[in-house]
């Protein structure tokens, strides 16, 4: 990389190694690269937080009030990218979503979920509707019945989410060891396919849990 101010060859860091000025963000810089992290899914969240605070101080626009326009812009760009990167990568599910998007997996292109999941989602939506109807009618017995049925369903769905997360974390380990063992080229697609499908099922159940909670509480 060439420094955009003194034209020295830099190490690609945030600041030029020669003139120490803050560099503009290269186009297409992803969050992992920006934070000098490998594209792994297991991540030391405490270390990430430390990096976030340290870099926040270094990039802060307050320190660039008297700098050139280019550096002021670079400070704003780097600060905002840092915030986005930190917020996304610190959370395992957001991190997975981001990696999938980075690898070209689009949410809208997902195929329909398996029949049993669809049946369950449909049935539970029916139950939510029954609860709504019972509320409207003011029938205490019906209401109680609908509530307890949904509470039971909610507990079951939460177990299911936990189970999906455990499966996802197993994929995390497989993904990371494939990077460590340099077998990622062959394992990439099957792993991403499976994670993408799992995330899609998870989102479906997550939406349902949200709707049920909204009606229950």
């Amino acid at each position, binding site marked *: 990389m060439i420094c955009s101010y003194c034209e020295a060859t830099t190490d690609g860091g945030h600041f030029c190694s020669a003139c120490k000025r803050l560099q503009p963000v290269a186009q297409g810089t992803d969050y992992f690269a920006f934070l000098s992290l490998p594209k792994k899914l297991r991540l030391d969240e405490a270390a990430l937080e430390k990096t976030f605070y340290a870099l926040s101080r270094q990039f802060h626009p307050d320190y660039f009030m008297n700098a050139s326009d280019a550096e002021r812009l670079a400070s704003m760009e780097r600060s905002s990218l840092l915030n986005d990167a930190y917020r996304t990568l610190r959370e395992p599910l957001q991190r997975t979503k981001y990696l999938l998007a980075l690898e070209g997996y689009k*949410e*809208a292109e*997902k195929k*329909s*979920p398996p*029949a049993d*999941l*669809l*049946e369950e*989602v*449909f049935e539970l*939506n029916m139950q939510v*509707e029954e609860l709504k109807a019972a509320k409207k009618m003011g029938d205490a017995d019906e209401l109680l019945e609908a509530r307890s049925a949904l509470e039971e369903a909610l507990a079951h769905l939460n177990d299911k989410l936990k189970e999906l997360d455990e499966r996802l974390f197993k994929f995390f380990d497989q993904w990371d060891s494939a990077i460590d063992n340099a077998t990622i080229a062959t394992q990439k697609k099957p792993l991403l396919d499976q994670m993408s499908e799992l995330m*899609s*099922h998870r*989102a*479906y159940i997550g*939406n*349902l849990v949200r*709707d049920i909670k909204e009606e229950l509480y």
Partner: protein
Amino acid sequence: MAYSEKVVDHYNNPRNVGSLDKKAANVGTGLVGAPECGDVMKLQIQVNPETHVIEDAKFKTFGCGSAIASSSLATEWLKGKSVDEALQIKNTEIVKELNLPPVKIHCSVLAEDAIKAAVRDFQTKQTEGDVKLEEAVVGA
């Protein structure tokens, strides 16, 4: 974002909401869903086994206004069509009829998928029925 008048109309007065007997040999059921928005759509057709004309269609959709309108419209269009004609219905026609904006195109895709799934279910039942009939004949 404002919904088009037609979407609002279908949303407020959905046509053909309900269900048909899932187990009946002449009923095809399509259940499809879009995980990203949490939508789930059930569309059923009742087919005349002789003429293969769709005599009745019902739907039940949990989702946004556009998803409800798309499936409501689909059931209107399905009645009186043959199953082969039903398979010709394209999501783009639904988009056009309901003036769906680009962000809601996936709702029409869902409706097209539901039609296809319902027809497929009916056709599977028909061939299974034929096999059973043959078995019965051979058994006799």
